[in-house]
């Protein structure tokens, strides 16, 4: 192994390869900031460039840089304007954007950069040590377990998102699931709930919905209530760049836990960074002390660090099945697999033996990519945060324009823009009535995966019996029920205590 690491190090640290990483990180960060262009599309765009380089190690190093840059860029738009362009950064906006509104955009970006760095680096170390062993564990997860895992994720989100109102959060999750069933599913080749509208054949677009749920209501709130934009958030004040010692103490264990958990979830093919970031957020919120729990969703550094660390660790984790089994676990790794094959490298169990220099240079380049990203981005943060210093009259039209662009680029369909406006109005009304919007979006994102895995296990076991036959599925589902019921019981107990206290007075 040490030989391999040495080979990888010497490849990654050659001058031209370092330039590749720097270039990749910069391209990724800047394009990734545009909502609608996630790591997957940016890597797809960069593949022709990478292939024309010829040398597989250099090409992969470039792509790894683009990958990490894109992830960080995506977090930036979530944090600054509440416009998550990629599913895996949705959880980042839960606490990232409230921090921005408190005038702590600089700090939020710093926390995000450091957590991403730590998540990615810890992930890379774990990948180095455990890749072969983990590959066999990942194969134990069948569709039944994936189904159960997603149910756990959804109920964990529903349990905490509604600031105590579990019913509302649950309802929003179900609405999200309903929306996910619109269109033609992968399993049935039959359009469902399209009401005869051709544009709905492929379902609702994720980006359209993400923009409509988060960015658009936010921009409308800024218009409705001008005092909102002056309350610290948009002053562009970035004096608060540094993380205090206290905050560092708070987020260190979070980053540690979430890097490991995120990595493990990322190893499972199909689970990926999105689930890792949501579960990471949910877990950290549930285990936080009570007074800190209240901060979640209102600008908790812990709530920002958790999904960022988990997301990046999971991205690294998704390389385990790719490099050891040749199975891409996510859209992004599938595209990377395409690039690898185009470069005449076939990932699989033999890769580590046959072409160790490639295996190791990929891993080392992930590490280098992370370091470079941190070095590049920390000094850039004040300038990135300056976006918020743009006067309100300019900022709002531009936010609206970017939400429109995000929805349009993905589908190239102007109807999508009308849907965006329609959903945006609905989302604003829902926010008026204190309905949490995150569960809706998460339900939508996980909905199709949930149904696919559910259907697959139903087919395999010829009915619902898989729940009883597979103990791991059963265990996960029980956990999901507990997650929903627990806050209800807790709330009831609190109310009872208050009543008793009122009576004894």
């Amino acid at each position, binding site marked *: 192994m040490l030989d391999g690491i040495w080979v990888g190090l010497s490849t990654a640290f050659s001058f031209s390869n370092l330039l590749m990483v720097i270039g990749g990180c910069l391209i990724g960060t800047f*394009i990734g900031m545009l909502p609608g*262009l996630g790591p997957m599309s940016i890597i797809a*765009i960069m593949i022709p460039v990478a292939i024309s380089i010829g040398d597989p190690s250099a090409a992969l190093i470039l792509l790894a840089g683009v990958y990490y840059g894109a992830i960080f860029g995506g977090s930036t738009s979530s944090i600054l304007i509440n416009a998550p362009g990629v599913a895996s950064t949705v959880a980042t906006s839960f606490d990232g954007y409230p921090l921005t509104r408190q005038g702590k955009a600089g700090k939020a970006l710093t926390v995000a950069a450091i957590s991403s760095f730590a998540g990615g680096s810890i992930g890379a170390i774990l990948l180095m040590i455990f890749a072969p062993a983990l590959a066999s564990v990942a194969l134990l997860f069948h569709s039944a377990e994936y189904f159960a895992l997603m149910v756990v994720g959804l109920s964990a989100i529903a349990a905490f998102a509604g*600031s*105590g*109102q579990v*019913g*509302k959060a*649950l*309802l929003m999750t*179900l*609405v999200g*699931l*309903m929306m996910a*069933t619109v269109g033609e*599913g992968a*399993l*049935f080749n*039959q359009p469902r*709930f399209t009401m005869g509208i051709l544009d709905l054949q492929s379902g609702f677009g994720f980006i359209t919905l993400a923009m409509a749920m988060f960015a658009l209501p936010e921009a*409308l*709130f800024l*218009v*409705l*209530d*001008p005092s909102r934009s002056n309350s610290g958030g948009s002053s562009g004040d970035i004096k608060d760049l540094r993380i205090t010692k206290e905050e560092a103490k708070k987020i260190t264990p979070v980053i540690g836990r979430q890097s490991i958990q995120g990595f493990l979830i990322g190893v499972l093919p199909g689970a990926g960074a999105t689930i890792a970031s949501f579960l990471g957020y949910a877990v950290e919120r549930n285990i936080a002390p009570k007074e800190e729990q209240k901060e979640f969703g209102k600008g908790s550094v812990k709530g920002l660090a958790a999904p960022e660390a988990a997301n990046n660790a999971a991205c690294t984790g998704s390389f385990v099945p790719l490099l050891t089994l040749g199975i891409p676990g996510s859209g992004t790794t599938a595209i990377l697999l395409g690039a690898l094959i185009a470069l005449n490298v076939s990932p699989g169990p033999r890769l580590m033996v046959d072409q160790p220099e490639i295996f190791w240079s990929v891993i080392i380049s992930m590490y280098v990519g992370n370091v470079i990203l941190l070095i590049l981005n920390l000094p850039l943060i004040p300038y990135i945060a300056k976006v918020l210093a743009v006067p*309100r*009259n*300019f900022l*709002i*039209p*531009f936010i*609206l*324009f970017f939400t*429109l*662009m995000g929805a*349009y*680029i993905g589908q*190239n369909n*102007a109807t999508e*823009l*009308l849907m965006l*406006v329609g959903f*945006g*109005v609905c989302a604003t*009304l*829902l*926010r*008026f*009535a*204190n309905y949490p919007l995150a569960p809706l979006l998460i339900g939508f994102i996980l909905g199709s995966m949930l*149904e696919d895995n*559910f*259907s697959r296990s*139903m*087919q395999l*076991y*010829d009915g619902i019996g898989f729940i009883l036959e597979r103990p791991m599925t059963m265990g996960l589902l029980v956990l999901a029920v507990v997650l929903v019921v627990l806050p209800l019981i807790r709330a009831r107990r*609190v*109310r009872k205590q208050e009543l008793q206290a009122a009576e004894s007075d």
Partner: protein
Amino acid sequence: MALDRWIALVILAVSLMYGYTAFFMMDAGLPPFMRFNPIWPSTFPKIIAVGAAITSLVILLGFEKKPADADEGEIDFSRLGDYNIGQAVFLLVLMVAYALLLRPAGFLLSTLLFLVVAAALLGERRFYILVPVAAAAAGGVWYLVQQTLGIYLSPLPTFLS
């Protein structure tokens, strides 16, 4: 009745319609060979429809008590008159207009108009800054998306291209 219960009523209606479709209409078009399948395209929607209907009823009937430490809503209804509802509605109309104009008028012109009109509506009067900035943004994004990334955006009005 508070707004959240009105919304629950709407969602209840939607889920009843959704459920009606799932329970009574979708299976009619199912090919015979798929009837032996343990899972039909309508199976999962049926489950969701029942769940959503029950949950929205719970909220509609007010079974869920608002916790004592719940957040205040972001919107203060007593101050409703102070909000710029007109501006918000106008911006939404503008976005719809943008969507409808994007193809016929081309990306560059409709984007420029959208940015300028929206900013002017919000009270921006320094047109000597606004127009160049909007033009640069429209041109810049078009160049990035079409020329660099290769995603097609028709730049000019239909009668020119």
